[in-house]
């Protein structure tokens, strides 16, 4: 059944860019461009798919983590005696029990203790670990560990972090950012300066300032952190784990265990969503430590409470913006300062700063900019990667500013954006030219052109249908106080790892003949977290090798790194690696064919040869041989790394540099109805238009766009981790009080997909997972402002913000 909310548009009469021409594989069923179904679909609907929390082993123990009950304190004493004496307890470990001198880890900066060492820096920091024969035994034992804390003052915001007498969250920093930050409680600072803002300000007819606040969002993936560590006979350990990047985990785990990397074997277990929250380690090292200590398999599964402490969140932010424009609606300049709270440990903060600053003014042409982004060290919960990664917070603020300027100019907000929209060839604030399609104005045009949902849908012959009204079944209004609002937003997200990072993926592809049929096997270490990478890999193999049957091997560390399932990069980079490995395999197969059959037909030497439907054919369609005849018993297997174009670091003073490899754009239109008296919001519709370059799997593309859109909606109207500013303790670590949208809160999400090829990318594709998360939030906020006339400078919006009470 076709979804009424799905639209696809090819380049047609649209702006610049053309679809990539694909010759090889164009005849192959189930290849790229088709909405083939997930290879793991059946397992997932029958309950047989083994998620990390489903792992089970004969004789296994349960691990449990004791976490700090305070945010910032010295550990005066720690007594594990009673816990260790509890029947059923096999091990209790603290910092002093760690096996090597490597006792910290981190994605970029190794500042995170495996277990607290004399001090805790945030609420919920791991202090001790227990292994026991039942989870309840482990919990009771952990409760018997006596920890005496001497509390320290808490650092909770920029003022307390940078005060002259501020306590340092990390006393002896020796990381590579300490040399250029203005204060040791600042993780990283990235200025971006281009043109002359002072001079541009003189040209501006209007100057609009704004201060914005973005609350802490949680990834709230449904499958909590979990895994099973099984000790190996050779002294090593095998970890079955849900993560976003096996090899990054491995690099951090092995040194702490004192093992060479080849003795820490890692297999990806089923991942119940990630959204950035599994970039950092959670229970990996703890499970391995307990398994190696006890000689028994150890399973750790966080509950939801612990999950809120067990992973980093989206950085909360304060953002200060100044926009100038001329009377005719052209931006003169943007100055902004973005303060991200990284919490107690660095995690991905430096890279988040890079994104927030370099994408800080949005997808607009502005010659004169002065941007500064910093991330703080505080005693708040550690923050790091989440879908949108620094670009989300900025988009919320710059889009609010764009509306404000348009209003000041008396101009339509969409038209104002279109007048300033970037396009291919635009120079970014970093000095980097945008060298592929950037259809910003077109996306806005498309999203605006979609039909509006009818007004007052709640009215029926039997009175008001409360399900269609703000408050829903809670029956708070029958139409009283309800006002409709419409808002627009557009955003820009980078794709792939930036700033000179060596971002590569590895793929191993094998081709052989089984039962007379050519079969391809694809093996990568890519973490399938739900995004559908496994579906796409099979499609690529079909397209490139002309086969029907493709087997996707489970991801593990027996093959080279596939990089992270982050930054909208997997289809681009690991997809690119699979394509590349397939091309090498194809070349090898054709070479075998030339050797075997070349003398029988001149076309082997003269024509362009393709693999189609299990045969070697010429580009004219002539069949030269079957793959089965070419290969016979031969197996072709190639493992190869693949890289996207190199990027450069941003200059630490000016922010100049070709830092990004690709950009991704999405626009949203939100239609909301607000009960203005009670401050309740119902999002009626959230339409999205996005350029995806090339949709390798249209069904999955739409799924990603709709999912990202819903997460943006969540942080617009309900999602926030609330931290007590006096104690830095988390007040709502549960699904009772951290609310994510239900199916009753999520509207229809019509999607209009544009496919303008990026000639630098495999198949012309564009990374798509994150862009829809950016513009969704500001579009909803704009719609609420439109309905209420309120300024609303923070997200999420709470009822009291709308009622003023």
């Amino acid at each position, binding site marked *: *059944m076709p*979804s009424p*909310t799905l639209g696809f548009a090819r380049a047609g009469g649209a702006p610049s860019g053309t679809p990539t021409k694909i010759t090889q594989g164009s005849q192959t*069923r*189930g290849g790229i461009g088709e909405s*083939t*179904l*997930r*290879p*793991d*679909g*059946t*397992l*997932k*609907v*029958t*309950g047989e*798919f083994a*998620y990390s*929390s*489903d792992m*089970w082993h004969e004789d296994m123990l349960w691990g449990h983590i004791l976490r700090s009950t305070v945010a910032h304190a010295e550990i005066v004493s720690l007594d594990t005696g009673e816990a260790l004496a509890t029947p059923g307890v096999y091990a209790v470990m603290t910092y002093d029990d760690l096996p090597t001198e490597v006792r910290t880890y981190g994605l970029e900066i190794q500042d995170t203790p495996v277990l607290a060492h004399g001090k805790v820096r945030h609420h919920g920091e791991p202090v001790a670990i227990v292994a026991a024969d039942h989870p*309840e035994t482990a919990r009771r034992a952990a409760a018997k560990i006596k920890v005496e804390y001497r509390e320290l003052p808490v650092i909770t915001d920029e003022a307390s972090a940078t005060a002259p007498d501020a306590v340092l969250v990390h006393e002896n920093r020796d990381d590579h950012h300490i040399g250029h930050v203005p204060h040791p409680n600042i993780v990283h600072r990235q200025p971006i300066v281009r043109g002359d803002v002072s001079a541009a300000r003189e040209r501006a007819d209007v100057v609009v300032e704004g201060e914005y606040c973005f609350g802490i969002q949680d990834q*709230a*993936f*449904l*499958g*909590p952190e979990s895994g099973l560590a099984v000790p190996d006979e050779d002294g090593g350990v095998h970890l079955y784990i849900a993560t976003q990047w096996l090899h990054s985990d491995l690099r951090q785990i092995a040194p702490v265990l004192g093992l060479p990397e080849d003795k820490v074997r890692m297999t990806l277990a089923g*991942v*119940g*969503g990630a959204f950035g929250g599994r970039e950092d380690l959670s229970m990996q090292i703890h499970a391995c430590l307990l398994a190696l200590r006890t000689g028994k398999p150890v399973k750790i*599964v966080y*509950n*939801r409470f612990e999950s809120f402490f067990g992973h980093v969140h989206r950085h909360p932010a304060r953002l200060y913006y100044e926009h100038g424009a001329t009377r005719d609606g052209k931006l003169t300049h943007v100055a902004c300062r973005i303060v991200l709270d990284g919490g107690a440990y660095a995690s991905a903060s430096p890279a988040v700063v890079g994104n927030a600053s370099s994408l800080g003014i949005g997808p607009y042409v502005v010659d004169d900019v002065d941007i500064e982004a910093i991330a703080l060290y505080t005693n708040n919960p550690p923050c790091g990667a989440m879908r949108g990664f620094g670009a989300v917070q900025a988009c919320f603020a710059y889009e609010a500013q764009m509306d404000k300027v348009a209003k000041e100019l008396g101009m339509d907000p969409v038209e104002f954006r279109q007048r300033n929209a970037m396009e291919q060839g635009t120079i970014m604030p970093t000095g980097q030219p945008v060298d592929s399609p950037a259809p910003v104005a077109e996306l806005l045009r498309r999203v605006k052109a979609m039909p509006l949902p009818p007004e007052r849908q709640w009215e029926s012959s039997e009175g008001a*249908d409360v*399900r*269609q009204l703000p408050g829903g*079944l809670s029956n708070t209004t029958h139409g009283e106080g309800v006002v409709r609002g419409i808002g627009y937003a557009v955003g820009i997200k980078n794709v792939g790892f930036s700033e000179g990072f060596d971002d590569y993926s590895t793929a191993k592809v094998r081709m052989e003949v089984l039962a007379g049929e050519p079969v391809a096997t694809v093996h990568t270490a890519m973490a399938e*977290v*739900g995004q*559908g990478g496994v*579906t796409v890999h099979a499609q690529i193999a079909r397209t490139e090798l002309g086969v*029907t*049957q*493709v087997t*996707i091997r489970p991801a593990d560390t027996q093959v080279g790194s596939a990089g992270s399932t982050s930054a909208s990069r997997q289809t681009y980079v690991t997809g690119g690696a699979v394509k590349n490995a397939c091309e090498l395999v194809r070349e090898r197969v054709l070479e075998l064919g030339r050797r075997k059959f070349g003398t029988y037909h001149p076309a082997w030497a003269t024509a362009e040869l393709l693999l189609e439907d299990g045969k070697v054919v010429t580009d004219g369609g002539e069949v030269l041989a079957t793959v089965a005849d070419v290969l016979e018993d031969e197996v072709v297997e190639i493992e190869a790394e693949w890289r996207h174009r190199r990027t450069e670091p941003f200059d630490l003073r000016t922010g100049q540099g070709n830092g990004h490899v690709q950009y991704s754009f999405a626009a949203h239109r939100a239609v909301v109805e607000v009960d203005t008296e009670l401050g309740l919001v119902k999002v009626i519709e959230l339409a999205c238009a996005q350029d995806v370059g090339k949709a390798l799997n249209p*069904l*999955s593309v739409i*799924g990603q766009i*709709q*999912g990202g*859109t*819903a*997460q943006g909606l969540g942080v617009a109207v309900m999602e926030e981790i609330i931290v007590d500013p006096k104690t830095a303790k988390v007040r709502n670590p549960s699904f*009772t009080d951290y609310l*994510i949208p239900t*199916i*009753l809160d*999520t509207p*229809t999400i019509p999607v209009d997909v544009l496919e303008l090829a990026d000639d630098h990318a495999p198949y012309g594709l564009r990374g798509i997972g994150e862009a829809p998360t950016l513009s969704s939030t500001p579009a909803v906020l704009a719609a609420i402002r439109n309905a209420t006339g309120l300024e609303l400078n923070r997200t999420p919006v709470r009822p009291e913000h709308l009622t003023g009470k």
Partner: protein
Amino acid sequence: MRVNFTVNGRPQEADDVWEGESLLYVLRERLGLPGSKNACEQGECGSCTVRLDGVPVCSCLVAAGQVQDRDVVTVEGLADYAKQRDRVTSGGTALDEARQWAARGTDSQTGEGGELSPIQRAFIDAGAVQCGFCTPGLLVAADEMLERNPDPSDADIREALSGNLCRCTGYEKIMDAVRLAAARQGEEV
């Protein structure tokens, strides 16, 4: 304590059950049925939804001791459960339909092997599965709704599934899947 009950039509016995254990824990850790998922343990996500004497409930909030002598259906038994229901209601024609849908799978691991219930098939076909962690609970809830209400409106679907959180899909493909299952169910009659 010892608990005896029926799961997916088979008698089961769990021994040495701690009194504070939930039905969910017993299913997952003692009976080798990890299909019901543990995502919140507070009845706020629906991932652990099973049918207890036919009624959808959060198995994380049912104490293990409460299921003594009772009947539980989990996602692992959903296909059989639907097959038996169809035998009763439509003389087995749904089976052929189910095979036909299964044959549409194009990947080596999709659509082959065991038979699926119509709602399971529809979730795959409509793209309603991403990470899949919410899927088992949604399937149990959606299947029960279609049993009660074979021709649901969108508002009915949303209300029936309002106890099941999904973080990946934005729910649109889930709506499509339930509409699809209802439509296919309608075609059969």
